[in-house]
């Protein structure tokens, strides 16, 4: 059943290659079906797998469907669905978006290392096409190069893993005992390989260029794709390698946080500024994942969800502004709704109370203190301090500076979406369970290797 998540977008993509005009509606259709599929199978509190062909794991390729991958897929498809509601944003990118959707779903669902590599490649390439919108070719090219490198390193890691364990199935690999030295090699290479998509320092050079390059890329890459990538980080380092190599991730992540924030502070371009801030947030999430406990991971994904929602709103509004106005001073006087939702989203990003970010940030800090980690909270608070600086600066600039006489009509759909999502953030502050429950289940699923192995390698269900 869940293989539909990959199959439908793929199929419709090929269909729409023939009928270009149908691309947009088909994309919408794909998104809707995926959402329905997901809603139909709500939180399978067990591990289901779906084998390709009737090759039982560990021999065949299999998709794994447990709470973790379900929640990830839910978030991923949710944002694709939101994007599909905005035709003027999709324009002629329906095909690549559908491919991207298929790839992201596959990346999330697959239970096979090599397969995940394949999906990552597809994801990168389609993402590059998306990124090259609005003649943003040079940055897309950078992204392509980096993605290529990352892919090759990922592949290398996979090969190492294969040589070390003789298997490509994650469950199987996680069962096998790997010699320390090769484990180091494998985890390091995976860390680097995922580092590009997970926006880890110093592999995140592409981010500002790609996110700042046009108005579609950040909205989709900054939310869905990065969620998928960070999910994979959790899957590999949490489930498969039992948190070995977490030290690398932790260090890199802490550096990433600071670097991202200071880079965002000096940034003069609205989109790029928040691109950097998403780098920093990714750093927070990765550092939190590297802690390895189920609770920490759950909080990490809770934070990531809040961040993704906020970022979606921010990038939506920012993209609209950047490409409709030359001078952004006081534009929100003309677009009050956009402005309100933007401000709420940014405040949630900082973690002011009344918004979702507060919940996740404070929980994370509290968790860290209970783990007796005193460095990370300090770094995080320092980062938040810098964040306050530029968030307030942008809000003040966009609300209060003397406006120019440029005009642009309000985007109805985007405005409503932004408003709804920002209100959702407030709702999450009041009732965090909205995201927290799922995130926690995800965390448990990721941390619980035994269950995973048992679920994958036991009797086969479903299939096609």
């Amino acid at each position: 059943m869940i293989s539909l998540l990959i199959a439908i977008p793929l199929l419709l993509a090929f269909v729409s290659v023939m009928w270009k005009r149908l691309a947009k509606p088909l994309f919408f259709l794909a998104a809707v079906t995926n959402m329905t599929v997901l809603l139909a199978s709500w939180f399978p509190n067990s591990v289901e797998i779906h084998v390709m062909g009737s090759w039982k794991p560990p021999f065949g390729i299999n998709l794994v469907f447990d709470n973790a991958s379900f929640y990830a897929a839910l978030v991923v498809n949710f944002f694709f669905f939101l994007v599909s509601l905005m035709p003027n944003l999709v324009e002629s990118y329906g095909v690549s978006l559908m491919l991207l959707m298929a790839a992201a779903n596959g990346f999330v669902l697959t239970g096979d290392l090599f397969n995940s590599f394949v999906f990552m490649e597809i994801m990168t390439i389609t993402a590059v096409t998306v990124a090259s919108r609005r003649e943003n070719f040079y940055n897309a090219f950078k992204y392509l190069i980096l993605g290529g490198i990352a892919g090759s390193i990922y592949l290398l890691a996979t090969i190492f893993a294969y040589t070390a364990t003789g298997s490509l199935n994650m469950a199987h690999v996680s069962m096998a005992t790997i010699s320390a030295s090769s484990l180091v090699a494998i985890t390091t290479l995976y860390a680097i390989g995922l580092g590009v998509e997970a926006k880890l320092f110093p592999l995140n050079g592409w981010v500002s260029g790609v996110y700042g390059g046009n108005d579609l890329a950040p909205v989709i890459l900054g939310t869905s794709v990065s969620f998928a990538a960070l999910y994979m980080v959790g899957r590999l380092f949490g489930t498969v390698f039992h948190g070995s190599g977490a030290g690398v991730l932790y260090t890199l992540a802490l550096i990433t946080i600071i670097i991202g924030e200071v880079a965002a502070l000096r940034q003069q371009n609205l989109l790029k500024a928040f691109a950097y801030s998403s780098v920093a947030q990714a750093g927070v999430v990765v550092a939190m994942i590297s802690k390895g406990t189920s609770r920490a991971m759950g909080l990490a994904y809770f934070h990531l969800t809040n961040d993704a929602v906020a970022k979606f709103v921010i990038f939506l509004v920012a993209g609209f502004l950047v490409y409709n106005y030359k001078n952004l001073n006081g534009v929100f006087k003309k677009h009050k709704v956009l402005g309100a939702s933007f401000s709420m989203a940014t405040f949630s990003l900082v973690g002011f109370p009344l918004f979702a970010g507060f919940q996740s940030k404070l929980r994370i800090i509290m968790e860290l203190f209970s783990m007796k980690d005193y460095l990370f909270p300090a770094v995080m608070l320092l980062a938040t301090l810098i964040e306050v600086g530029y968030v307030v600066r942008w809000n003040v600039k966009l609300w209060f500076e003397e406006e120019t006489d440029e005009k642009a009509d309000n985007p109805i759909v985007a405005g409503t979406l932004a408003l709804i999502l920002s209100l959702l953030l407030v709702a999450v502050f009041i009732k965090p369970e909205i995201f927290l429950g799922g995130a926690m289940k995800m965390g448990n699923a990721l941390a619980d290797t035994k269950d995973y192995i048992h679920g994958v390698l036991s009797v086969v269900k479903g299939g096609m």
Partner: protein
Amino acid sequence: MALSTLLISLLVTSVVIYFISKVSWRAGAILNFLIGVFLISYVFALHIGVTSNLGTLFGQKLQLTWTHASYYFSAVSLLVIVSVMLFAIKWLDSQKYPAAFNMFILMMTAGSLGVFMAADLITLYIFWEIAVLSSMLIVPMGKKESRKAAVIYAVMSASGTYMYLYGAFLAFQRYGTLNISEIARHMVSDPSTGIKAAIFLLLASAGIAKSGIFPLHTWLRIAHGNAPDAFSAVLSGQLVKLGSYVLMITVAAIPSLRVFGNIPFYSGIPATNYFLIALGATSIIIGTLMAIKQDDMKMLIAFSSVANGGYILIGIGTMDPMGFEGGVLHVFNHAIAAAVIFMAFASVVYRTHTKKISELGGLIHKMPITFLAYLFAIISLAGIPPMSGFISKWMIYQALVRKGMFITAFIAFFGSIGSFLYVFRPLAGVFLGQLPKKYKDVKEVPPVMWIPMMTLVVISLVIGIWPFPVLQPIEGMRMDYGIAPTMRIADSSHWLIKGFSGSWNPVLVFNLFIIGFVIAYILYTMFPRPKKVDLLAPHKEEGAPINIYTGGEYIYTPELYHYNTKFYAGFERMYEKHPSWEKVLEMLAKFFHDLGEWVHGWFFRPSPSAYTFWVSLTILIVFWVRW
């Protein structure tokens, strides 16, 4: 109505107020004012010890409780806020965003009330952020500079707040609770001084940042100086007091004398408290010296707020009964005085559209009521009887002299006499002297604007003559915190205020002043009537010179003959080349910018080949580290 319901409904109402104000901002403002009046009556009706639950946040109960401290601080805050709300009913028509102003000021009220009611650190933090956020959104509604001001305000306040948060969670991790009294109880029995001191200072830093104590004082100048004029009254009169409240919580609610009894520094005062006192003293010096040389009247009073924050901190920091009461009472005095002063300035700016002292003058004959309000406010601010400002200063001096803290006392005296200098500068430059021709037909502000000022002035005067109504809750607070519970300072039966070194009788002092005034008036009327000469040329027929002593010369241009630029030139010249802490902080900000520049240049701008280089370098480093 339970406290939690009150706060939440206030938050909701503020949004409603926004939409009402969209229809008619004046209706919104009046509604605000009515809500404020209701709040005051509500606060005075509440019984000490009422508690209520705000729900739970990650397993911690969020609790509100109503103590003497909450009662006192809320009453003072509401006094200021409500008068500003009344002031705003007319004043707002000179503003660009009346609706947003109405919404945020109500939201801020809810936030600050929450802070005063909070029983645990996290609740305090939540409402604190609400208050900061909403006030931070009002600040940039002012003139051009106010945009920058908002950012600086936000960052400074946040830097304090996050240190506080770190401290709060440190305490939580160590003592397993966030409830303030619980933490206090644990800290007393906690052996390790280092961690206690760390928690203490981290918690205090929020208050330091908010009440403009030395290392983090620089935001007051720019924020109070450029915020919308009437809102400066709230900023300086009320929001700064949030900081004082947090400082009081850290120093008194956590019984620092017992907690840090093992590290006494000087005459029984722990090193931690003494550190805070030193900071307070530094900010008195800085505030006074900088205030004396300001030409912008709002910035001048902003610096005076720095100095007075120092007084409050010193008073509370001594943890001496007199000092504590003096510090806490100074909160009231400075709140009222600063509010009135800023409202008077707001009225002046409302009429003349400038806040530069050197561009004003002689407004007394145009705006006499505003002048009187300002006059009495500065008498209170400078701590001169019979206004209430004197009582708190007297108490603080008592404490300092008793403890034999002569250097701190010296700084306190310096600040107090310096305050004569800087409060007199706007008095002379703005209200007295020659009226420039361009303000020939300036009018007094309408009653709805001067009534709040005058009300506050009268309150301050009455408290100055009969301070016991305010001293009672403060004594209650002192009992709560167990600072010399047996000692009584306010002896209302004999109309006396008793210090360790003799007492005094405010009523008597006031009567003496009246008697002296009466005698002077009798003498005045006994002798020949004066001939009124008009010192203001614009009033007389055209071409008539100024009728004051000019060495026999004819002067036709009053504004040139009005001495108000570099009023204390002789004194200012002595510290022209002073070092500036603002520059240091700017350097810090610039450092972060340059770091961002550097990072961007090295990691984010370069070509793909450079990326490959970085990737391989990272791989190598990681392998090298791990093998």
